[in-house]
């Protein structure tokens, strides 16, 4: 009998809430974390609104030692550590104090780029001929694997500890990689997740590509959300999400609370062929990713109650919906409920997949589908495919049995995970 993998803990640092309980509350109340940033105005950004988790100074001391806080200037590490440690504790796991690592627990915690603000400090010092003034923390805060390394040391994990990177697919990919490692019997528990730094050096490149909304700097609360007829680009975000995946027997033996089960999933790429490119998804690859995820999970497309889409608030949203209708062979009133978190948080880039996986599991656990914000008028191309009531714009109290979560990323890479309400 193949091993079953369940989710026993979660943590999150999202632009609209930090901490699992507040995040759940923010989803149900549809609280937005999208704000105006004077710094972006000063730097002549076209898009001066963004999503950034608010972390009070005193909260940091709960997660970092005074020594770790000295010269800490890597926002991705801050978010990733908060989410990762929270998930670990939420799962009822203790932090190892002694000398022996926990050989059965590993970490796959991804990022797109890490510690850009720290790297900027280093660049200024190096260019001034003061390389020796960098100190010891420049490398550990800017290496991509810095986030898994920080968490690995704090938690004492002795299994695989690594960082993956696949643009906006990163978080969902990390989840599926951890899932596969447990399935293969190589680990009992995997802390999976992803983080993304915030700030102009992360967001600038996207601003330059003219794919961010430029006309809502004065009214961030009204920026059109995903699936909206007026969607004009994604709002850049940041943060981190984390989940503890655990082999079912291990979870039961510990008496752990089980939020949901991961049935399976699929990761693929469109090879940047056909209509795929560095920045656009090959539609055939997306459809294959969804159908293979369903097949790998041993379910039928009709079993899916809800979808948490990638849906960023660009013209690609209707193409994504079209791909779902083809892959599921369901449309109009037969289509599952679908929503997107990005209207509430912005697009948290490499952190988006993991934050959205946390949001997806919370919906199963707490019996609701959160509403998609700022999408009063749905895009006409989407309405041709899906009935309007399948796109909740307000909180919907609804018991979800099976949810499909998709993430797509630059480089033409895709990931789809299938979550199910846990039943023994």
């Amino acid at each position, binding site marked *: 009998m193949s091993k079953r993998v369940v989710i026993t803990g979660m943590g999150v640092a999202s632009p609209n809430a930090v901490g699992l309980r507040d995040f759940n509350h923010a989803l149900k109340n549809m609280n937005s974390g999208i704000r105006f940033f004077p710094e972006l105005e000063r730097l002549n950004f076209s898009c001066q609104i963004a999503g950034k988790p608010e972390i009070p100074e005193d909260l940091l001391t709960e997660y970092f030692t*005074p*020594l770790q806080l*000295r010269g800490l200037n890597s926002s991705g590490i801050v978010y990733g550590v908060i989410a990762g440690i929270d998930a670990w504790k939420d799962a009822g796991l203790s932090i190892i104090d002694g000398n022996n690592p926990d050989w059965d627990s590993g970490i796959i915690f991804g990022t797109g780029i890490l510690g850009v603000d720290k790297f900027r400090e280093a660049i200024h010092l190096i260019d001034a001929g003061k390389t*020796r*003034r960098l*100190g*010891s*923390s420049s490398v550990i805060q800017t290496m991509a694997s810095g986030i898994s390394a920080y968490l690995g040391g704090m938690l004492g994990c002795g299994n695989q500890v690594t960082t993956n990177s696949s643009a906006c697919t990163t978080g969902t990919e990390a989840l599926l990689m951890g899932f596969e490692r447990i399935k293969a019997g190589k680990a009992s528990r995997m802390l999976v997740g992803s983080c993304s730094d915030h700030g102009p050096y992360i967001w600038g490149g996207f601003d330059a590509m003219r794919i961010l909304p430029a006309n809502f700097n004065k009214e961030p609360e009204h920026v059109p959300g995903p699936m909206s007829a007026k969607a004009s680009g994604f709002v850049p975000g940041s943060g981190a999400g984390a989940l503890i995946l655990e082999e079912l027997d291990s979870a039961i033996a510990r008496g752990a609370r089980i939020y949901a089960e991961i049935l399976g999933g699929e990761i693929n790429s469109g090879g940047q062929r056909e209509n795929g490119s560095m920045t656009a998804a090959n539609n055939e690859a997306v459809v294959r990713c969804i159908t293979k995820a369903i097949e790998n999970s041993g379910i039928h497309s009709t079993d899916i109650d809800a979808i948490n889409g990638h849906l960023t608030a660009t013209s690609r949203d209707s193409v994504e919906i079209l791909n779902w209708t083809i892959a599921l062979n369901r449309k109009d009133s037969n289509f599952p409920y679908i929503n997107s978190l990005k209207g509430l948080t912005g697009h948290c880039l490499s952190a988006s997949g993991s934050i959205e996986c946390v949001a997806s599991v919370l919906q199963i656990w707490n019996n609701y589908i959160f509403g998609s914000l700022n999408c009063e008028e749905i895009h006409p191309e989407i309405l041709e495919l899906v009935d309007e009531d399948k796109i909740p714009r307000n909180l919907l109290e609804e018991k979800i049995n099976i949810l499909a979560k998709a993430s797509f990323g630059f480089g033409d890479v895709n990931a789809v995970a299938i979550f199910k309400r846990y039943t023994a």
Partner: protein
Amino acid sequence: MNEKEILSRLKKIVEPYTQRPEGLRDFNVNTDFINDLQINSANLVDVVLDVEDEFNIEIDNDSMEGMLTVGDAKTIIENKLV
């Protein structure tokens, strides 16, 4: 600057890096940064930078390599301050 003052400033600098706090109780010229205070060897470069800032001196790489104890640090500082 007398020896007592240098030692007291040094003690303040190494405190956040010290993983064995009891080593600070008897802080003297023979105190070894790694063995007695269990300062992570990677953090020794940070101690050197903090010493540079505190005493407004520059410590070259050769001097740094010989800086294993509080006494070594004191001698280097005294030589630079002359």
